[in-house]
């Protein structure tokens, strides 16, 4: 295990060697020493950074197990952190009161699986929020309740004792409150140098801006990274598991509030705006032990985009080095990367910027259209 390690190049595998229900049944049979019945092995199509399967099996005693299998794409993950780091993050979450799916085991035996994977328990629930897309009062109520629940959950993440849980040892941490931005920029540039991303003059300009305008953090916390709609598991209106920790770090909690998806958008009820980014922050501050300032939040909207650019630069290297990179990774390395570059440049007054509506377009899926 290494801190924020860059994964090795994944060995080439044939399509026949990929994860499947038959492989999983055989794997479990060998591990348990008795036959098992796999009743579900379904790929989750929404994720981009890694592959996810939902699996269900019945063991020899008739007990049903529901799990999530996580593995890198055949050509490698879409982000420059390793699968073993993700597993270690989930393992450490078990030392906190943050809702999460409990890890089961990590499999690193090349003879046993197409590539390394780990299993975690599958928490009953869904990323979708019932009623979220309705354009009526019911929809507004659903969005507001989910957004408030998410702010409470973020406060819980930030209030967690990250040092006691071992996140500092795993991820590294800023030297102090005035080093949160410096630590973040060093982390990202270190990764970029390590995986050999394309030279990008824009990144150089942004790094200078971030370091030259760095605000002090109000505290140093565990920060989830990607968060909000599509990233957490809801059940009956409550967040029962927080997922997608690929961009986790120890730093300024403002960085999480800067990248909330779907739960900081304006909500209007009875003609009155009852929720927006500022109200979301106010709600969060009423629940977190240490408040976050709007200034820091705004700053990290830029800083996190900088981190995204480093991530996409990594995805580009994955596509570059293997024809087994996914078509989704090709898309990320082309269109998604372009809009994020444009947004970042626009924030610095370079170029035309970008219409924020494009990011809603990027989030659309064929299933949403069909629904």
């Amino acid at each position: 295990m290494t801190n924020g390690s860059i994964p090795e190049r994944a060995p080439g595998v044939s399509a026949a060697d990929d994860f499947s229900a038959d492989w999983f049944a055989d794997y479990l049979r060998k591990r348990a020493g008795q036959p098992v019945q796999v009743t579900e092995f379904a790929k989750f199509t929404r994720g981009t950074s890694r592959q996810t399967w939902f699996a269900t099996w019945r063991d020899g005693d008739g007990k049903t197990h529901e799990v999530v299998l996580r593995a890198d794409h055949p050509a490698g993950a879409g982000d420059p952190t390793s699968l073993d780091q993700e597993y270690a993050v989930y393992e450490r979450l078990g030392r906190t009161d943050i809702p999460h799916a409990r890890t089961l085991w990590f499999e690193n035996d090349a003879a046993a699986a197409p590539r390394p994977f780990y299993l975690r328990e599958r928490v009953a629930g869904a990323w979708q929020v019932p009623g979220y897309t309705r354009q009526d009062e019911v929809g507004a109520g659903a969005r507001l309740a989910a957004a408030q629940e998410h702010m409470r959950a973020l406060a819980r993440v930030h209030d967690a004792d990250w040092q006691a849980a071992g996140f500092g040892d795993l991820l590294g941490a800023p030297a102090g409150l005035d080093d949160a931005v410096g630590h973040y920029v060093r982390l990202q540039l270190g990764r970029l140098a390590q995986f050999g991303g394309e030279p990008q003059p824009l990144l150089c300009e942004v790094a200078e801006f971030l370091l030259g305008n760095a605000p002090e953090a109000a505290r140093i916390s565990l920060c989830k990274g990607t968060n909000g709609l599509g990233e957490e598991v809801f059940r009956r209106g409550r967040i029962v598991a927080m997922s997608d920790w690929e961009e986790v770090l120890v730093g300024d909690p403002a960085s999480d509030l800067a990248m909330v998806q779907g739960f900081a958008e304006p909500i209007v009820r009875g003609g009155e705006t009852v929720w927006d980014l500022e109200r979301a922050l106010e709600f969060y501050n009423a629940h977190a032990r240490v408040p976050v300032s709007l200034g820091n939040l705004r700053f990290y909207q830029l800083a996190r985009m900088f981190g995204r650019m480093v991530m996409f630069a990594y995805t580009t290297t994955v596509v570059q080095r293997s024809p087994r990179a996914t078509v989704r990774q090709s898309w990320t390395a082309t269109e998604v990367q372009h809009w994020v570059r444009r947004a970042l440049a626009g924030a610095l007054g370079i170029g035309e910027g970008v219409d924020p509506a494009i990011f809603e377009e990027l989030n659309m899926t064929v299933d949403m259209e069909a629904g």
Partner: protein
Amino acid sequence: MIHPTCTEVLATVQTAFDEQVVPHLADSEARSAAATIGHLLRHVALRIEQEGQILSDDIARLEALLGRIADWFDETRAADAQPLRAALVPALPAGRYPSLTLIGERALALRAALVAAQERLQEAAAGHGSEAGYTDLRAGIRDYIAAQLADEARLIAPAFQGRGPRR
């Protein structure tokens, strides 16, 4: 062979894919991948048509900008101009077809030289930050980035924007 061109062949691939393959996909993962493929086919078609000229323009802009930075380094002795001068030596071999790979590598080498020059310029800010020559160069770098993104947009926006779910 001149005709059908790559663009013409690709157009038939796109049509066949959209009309004969996509409607028959029932599986959610396959439909998601097909959506992404449809967008990327349009993107590739644009790149076939435009990328060569875009990279040539990019190289010309980079050479002009790096030349200005090297002159300023020499003039102010703020940094060593030699690495920039070395990067500016034409690298495309005479008499060889300037394939996209070759001119792409040339553009990347020049961008790497620009990033190194940016770092030297940023270090020189304390001593030269208020000088017109310095601020002109920094503005020139921002203009270069804006132009590069505008070029990139020509390969992205028409292929993806407003054309449906990506995945």
